[in-house]
């Protein structure tokens, strides 16, 4: 069940952010297009909301989204984006020590 919610949120993030990416390029060459501007802000808002919910449940997608108060550095152990299919990374058994 948790996986379904995670996949669902990631799908929302991917779709909303793709719209943001595509419209960024379009607005670069059509800076006066009001419809595009409106859709850009709409889908940016959708992306931010989905990403915020994702971060609360599964950890930050961007380092600047790291929530304080959990007392843990989660950014470093977030899954690598290229994992999936046959590719899996493991977490380190012990952190690096300089002493």
């Amino acid at each position, binding site marked *: 069940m948790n996986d379904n919610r995670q996949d669902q949120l990631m799908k929302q993030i991917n779709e909303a952010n793709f719209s943001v990416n595509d419209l960024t390029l379009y607005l670069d060459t059509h800076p006066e297009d009001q419809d595009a501007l409106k859709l850009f802000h709409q889908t940016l808002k959708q992306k931010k909301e989905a990403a915020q919910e994702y971060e609360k449940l599964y950890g930050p997608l961007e380092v600047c989204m790291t929530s304080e108060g959990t007392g843990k550095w989660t950014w470093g152990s977030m899954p690598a*984006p*290229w994992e*999936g*299919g046959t590719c899996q990374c493991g977490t380190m058994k012990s952190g690096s020590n300089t002493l």
Partner: protein
Amino acid sequence: MWNYEKRLQYPVKISKPNPRMAQVIISQFGGPDGELAASMRYLSQRYSMPYREVSGLLTDIGTEELAHLEIVGAIICQLTKNLTPEEITASGFDKYYVDHTTALWPQAAGGIPFNACEFQSKGDAITDLTEDLAAEQKARTTYDNILRLVKDPEISDPIRFLRAREVVHFQRFGEGLRMVQEQLDSRNFYAFNPEFDKVKQLQ
């Protein structure tokens, strides 16, 4: 500067390794018309582009190409997992494997290492944008060639996405070129180079 988001612009979920396809697809990682060439081309050209809107376009498309480089990397990573020595030898992947194991290293499918000579940053607004238009078509053709060889829909799905983006980038660069031309003398676009000349030098 760049921020990083720990997700792919388009998902890659390949369940069946295929080192033969990895050997082919690596051209879009480090080949002459691949995503590394594209991103370095646009991100290099942007500094001397005198029109903010067009240098902004170069930054934005260049950034997206870095995201595409990552998608291609993910495809190759997933295609080369859990390989046996027999599979490596039978697929022809052994020539790459001996030098890199299953790490990613920028080269073309035929073995030529990535090289700055594979792109230009010429410092002339019309020339650079024309180079960029060609680059997007070369990338599209490369993806078309890959799609003819791929049978597995888990591989062709992200490849089709990347191909579609090249077509959109081509469109945007065309618009960028027109924006530059609008700033120039329509009786002679080549009268001077807006990236360098302060006044008309050439007639």
